[in-house]
């Protein structure tokens, strides 16, 4: 996904994508991040306990923790509520 996203949107995207273990390369490719910012986002999420680094063989992969579910659910409900109220576009 590209375009102008907020940090919260990027966090949500990483956490949803990592519901199954994903490698660092797969995450930055999918979330359209460069490796430097990708490292920063992952470091933050791991530090807060939303992501966990899983060692599988030689390569490390990342997986969302049950704690991430709370953030994912809150984010989804906030974004879907955007269509419940306010002006609606129709012809």
């Amino acid at each position, binding site marked *: 996904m*590209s375009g102008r996203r907020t940090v919260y*949107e990027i966090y949500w995207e990483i956490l949803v994508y990592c519901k199954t273990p994903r490698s660092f390369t797969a995450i930055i490719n999918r979330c359209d991040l460069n490796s430097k910012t990708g490292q920063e986002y992952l470091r933050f999420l791991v530090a807060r306990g939303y992501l966990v680094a899983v060692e599988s063989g030689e390569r490390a992969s990342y997986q969302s923790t049950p704690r991430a579910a709370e953030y994912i659910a809150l984010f989804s409900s906030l*974004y879907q509520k955007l269509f419940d109220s306010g002006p*609606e576009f129709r*012809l």
Partner: protein
Amino acid sequence: MMNPALSQFKNEIRHFSLVTSANLVIGAVASAAGILYIIAAILGLTTNLVSPELRVIAGAIAMVCFGLGVSVLHVTLGISRGLRGIKDKIDREGPAVTDDRITCLIVQMTAFYRDIRKTLGTIILLGPLCGFCVFVLGIVIGLETFSITSSGVSFTLDNRVTILAQAITLAIVVSSLLSSHYFTKFAMAWNHRIDTIEASECTLKTTLGLDDQ
């Protein structure tokens, strides 16, 4: 039953896509009208115009018309390409769309809207201007006699040209005004959503434990 958010989201994208297509047509017609008049003038086919001054004015309007038409076409094509990407993703979804997938599409559209926000403002202004230029060009080409006296301005329009050409130019003006109106409506709806997102960032910040930083 389809998720109400998804259903509304789908409708909005479909309607916005229709408005974008209409704007593409307006841009294409305006640039075609402009370039056709310029070519006709170069080939000397515009000698039936009332006066040489009017030919110069019509030439200038035709050039503006062509420029505006190309701008509208170019800007709308940019929006259209991005929108098509999102629309294709929505169309590819089966009947059972997960909650995460719906949110993902909404996030994509939000990011896309942030990208086109300024462009949309430009197109809201350019569209009616483009339609107005086509209309004025149609009037100028259709003039049979034109005079300015101390008692006022008098002119006669060529009926053969007027009936068909003026109907088309009028349709272009109306369509350009309508598309501008719907672009404004779309921008208002999404600006409201962007404001709501910004307001709810506090909740997300607290959930992530960022409020203590």
